[in-house]
């Protein structure tokens, strides 16, 4: 058979590797800053851009989409070419993909710090960037598909299936979750409202973890672990079951993020059942990885790359064991809204994603630079300091989660809540400090890696065009034994793509379709009314400052929560909430019933300097809110957008909304004046106060409506 000569493109791999390291460092520094801000509020520097509410989305987005994202592309561009025995389909598309993705990341960092956010976790980017992501994702898809179509190897190795499944699922998730109506260049409202928005968001949020942080990295595991160990994967059969089971089951499990919320019960149960089922394929995959090293543990002792990979796969196993446990309602009742979640995701991010990325980097860089790694010893030290960092990060956060939850639920013998919310927070400060030390150790390891890789790169030379040869793909592929339908699909990537889309779409459709019919599904409450223009503007400031990152707006039906916050939240209260603001973490108290709890002046002083009202508070200061004047020019467009989304403002209300806004603002101003605070009516502070005083009050109005209506 005649051999064809061709060249692998290593230059793109190199660029993605550099981008992985660069953004990883940025993302982790942002994370460290956020971790310090939690116990040292002065580290917010009283500036909008450096405040926790804006730094935290930069951290999560940078780590997920910039660090892991570039890590995925690095691994795919390296392994796909070799597995297909073909160069990437188009050099131009590779370039567009690389630079497009980096531009999106840079724009994301800038816009998030400026406060442009949709407030949907891990999907915070505003609509122009959502469109850009879609375009670049399509470029990546064409490039990947083109390569598969012009391959010289008839069968698709299981890693490629994971890449294809990832591509399909991420495309679907991104598009469905990003339905939003633009109000201006950098502001949009979610198409969905309240319960429906929450369900779509967590269907997305869960599956972003599944299909961005897990399946592509499993593809990398199935390629790079055998490479690094120089032996085939333990069971190829198991890997096939692993793949299909994961993409089938994962998509159903999203609602487990919303247990005990106002989400309908059946959806919560559906999420739990499928989450438990996930345990089987996840552990199958982990064992498949670990068993690959059976009889080769002596290699692990010597090779830092294998060390990284073993801990990565173990962390994958731990996180995927914990996930199903957290989706049990009785466990979730304790873990949710606490630092337990933070510990859980960091076992995944630092252990599974981080360590697998480091392993792959240490393996790829010497390969494409044709030189041994500068220092194996330094890499081993990186491994140990990183492992120590993970432990020092995770253990205090698990502890903090348990302890805070127990304190929240503690009652005195007289039946009173035993602890103030603030006590449950200040009590955790030593643990928060320990966590940031863990993060610092982990980051130190990354700097050691940067030095190591820099030295390696300097010693070697990039083999940008790596020569290879392979016979062309024959027209008829000889069958090994009896032909099976599965082998048929393995040779047909287009069909594989379609089938995996069907697989992931089935779960999504069944979960989401019923909630699309919001009117019939969510019992409406007559007294729940749309926000006034001032409240709407205030709500957008609440979103801009990322308040939802520390404050939930969801009182769960538990004795302690009802005693602490007030009546538990009902689905019907959120029908005008585009987007929903339920939150996922309570670093501060729940705000679902904050309206009317304190006078306007309390909020004013508290925003300027939280410790003046609650000594010991770790909330940042928001002094700029009192100085910034409110952008009332945007009011008509916002009202029109809301009307389009079905919020029942009277026709033509956009034209008169601002006069209502000023009227209400003046009222707040009068209230403040009574408490000897001189504030201008047209400030952002006034709007935010108006919003906070409204939150959760509508159902109280129902009870006193008789007297109020007179």
């Amino acid at each position, binding site marked *: 058979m005649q051999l064809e000569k061709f060249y692998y493109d290593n230059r793109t791999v190199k660029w993605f590797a550099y981008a992985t390291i660069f953004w990883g460092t940025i993302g982790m520094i942002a994370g460290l800053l956020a971790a310090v801000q939690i116990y040292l509020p002065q580290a917010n520097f009283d500036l909008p851009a450096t405040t926790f509410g804006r730094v935290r989305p930069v951290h999560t987005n940078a780590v997920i989409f910039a660090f892991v994202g570039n890590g995925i592309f690095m691994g795919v561009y390296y392994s796909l070419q070799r597995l297909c025995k073909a160069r990437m389909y188009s050099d131009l598309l590779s370039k567009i993909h690389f630079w497009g993705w980096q531009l999106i990341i840079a724009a994301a960092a800038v816009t998030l710090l400026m406060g442009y956010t949709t407030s949907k976790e891990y999907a915070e980017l505003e609509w122009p960037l959502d469109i850009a992501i879609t375009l670049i994702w399509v470029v990546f898809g064409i490039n990947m598909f083109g390569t598969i179509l012009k391959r010289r190897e008839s069968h698709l190795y299981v890693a490629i299936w994971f890449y294809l499944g990832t591509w399909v699922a991420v495309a679907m998730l991104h598009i469905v979750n990003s339905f939003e109506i633009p109000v201006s260049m950098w502001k949009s409202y979610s198409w969905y409202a309240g319960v429906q928005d929450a369900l779509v968001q967590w269907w997305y949020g869960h599956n972003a973890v599944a299909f961005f942080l897990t399946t592509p990295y499993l593809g990398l595991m199935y390629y790079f672990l*055998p490479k690094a160990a120089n032996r*085939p994967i333990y069971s190829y059969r198991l890997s096939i079951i692993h793949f299909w089971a994961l993409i089938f089951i994962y998509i159903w499990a999203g609602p487990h993020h919303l247990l005990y919320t106002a989400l309908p019960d059946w959806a919560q149960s559906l999420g739990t059942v499928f989450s438990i089922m996930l345990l089987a394929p996840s552990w199958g995959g982990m064992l498949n990885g670990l068993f690959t090293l059976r009889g080769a543990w002596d290699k692990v002792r010597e090779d830092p790359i294998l060390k990284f990979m073993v801990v990565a796969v173990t962390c994958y196993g731990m996180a995927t064991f914990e996930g199903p446990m957290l989706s049990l309602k009785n466990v979730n009742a304790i873990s949710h809204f606490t630092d337990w979640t933070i510990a859980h995701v960091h076992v995944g991010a630092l252990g599974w994603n981080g360590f697998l990325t480091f392993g792959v980097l240490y393996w790829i860089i010497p390969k494409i630079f044709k030189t041994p790694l500068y220092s194996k010893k330094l890499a081993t030290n990186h491994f140990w300091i990183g492992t120590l960092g993970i432990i020092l990060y995770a253990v205090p956060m698990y502890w903090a989660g348990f302890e805070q939850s127990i304190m929240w639920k503690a009652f005195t013998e007289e039946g009173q809540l035993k602890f103030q919310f603030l006590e449950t927070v200040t009590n955790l400060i030593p643990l928060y400090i320990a966590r940031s030390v863990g993060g610092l150790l982990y980051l130190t390891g990354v700097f050691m890696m940067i030095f190591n890789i820099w030295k390696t790169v300097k010693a070697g030379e990039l083999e940008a065009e790596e020569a290879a040869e392979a016979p062309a793909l024959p027209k008829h592929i000889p069958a090994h034994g009896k032909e099976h339908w599965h082998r048929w699909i393995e040779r047909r990537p287009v069909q594989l793509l379609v089938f995996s889309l069907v697989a992931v779409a*089935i779960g999504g459709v069944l979960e989401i379709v019923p909630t699309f*019919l919001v009117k019939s599904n969510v019992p409406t409450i007559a007294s729940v009314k749309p926000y006034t223009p001032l409240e709407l503007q205030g709500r957008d400031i609440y979103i801009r400052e990322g308040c939802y990152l520390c404050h939930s707006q969801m009182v769960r039906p538990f004795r302690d929560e009802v005693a602490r916050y007030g009546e538990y939240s009902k689905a019907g209260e959120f029908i005008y909430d585009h987007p929903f603001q339920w939150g996922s973490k309570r670093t501060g108290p729940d705000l679902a019933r904050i309206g009317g709890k304190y006078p306007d002046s309390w909020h004013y002083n508290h925003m300027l300097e939280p410790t003046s009202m609650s000594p010991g508070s770790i909330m940042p200061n928001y002094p700029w809110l009192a100085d910034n004047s409110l952008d009332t020019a945007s009011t008509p467009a916002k009202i029109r957008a809301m009307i389009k989304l079905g919020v029942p403002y009277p026709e033509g209300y956009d034209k008169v909304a601002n006069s209502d806004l000023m009227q209400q603002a003046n009222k707040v101003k009068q209230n403040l004046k009574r408490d000897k605070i001189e504030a201008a009516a047209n400030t952002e502070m006034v709007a935010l106060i108006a919003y906070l005083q409204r939150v959760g009050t509508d159902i109280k109005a129902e009870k006193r409506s008789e007297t109020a209506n007179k």
Partner: protein
Amino acid sequence: MKFINYLETITGVDVYAMASFFIFFFFFLVMTLWAWKADKKFIDRMNNLPLE
């Protein structure tokens, strides 16, 4: 809120639910059987692909 409420509001939605569950289990069963019975030589060849 019982699931049946939603079934009643969408005409024929139960068909989708049942269909998706059946597709799911059927596919899974076939997958597992296939993996179980697949030709050893073929599996070995696939297994060694990354190492070529």
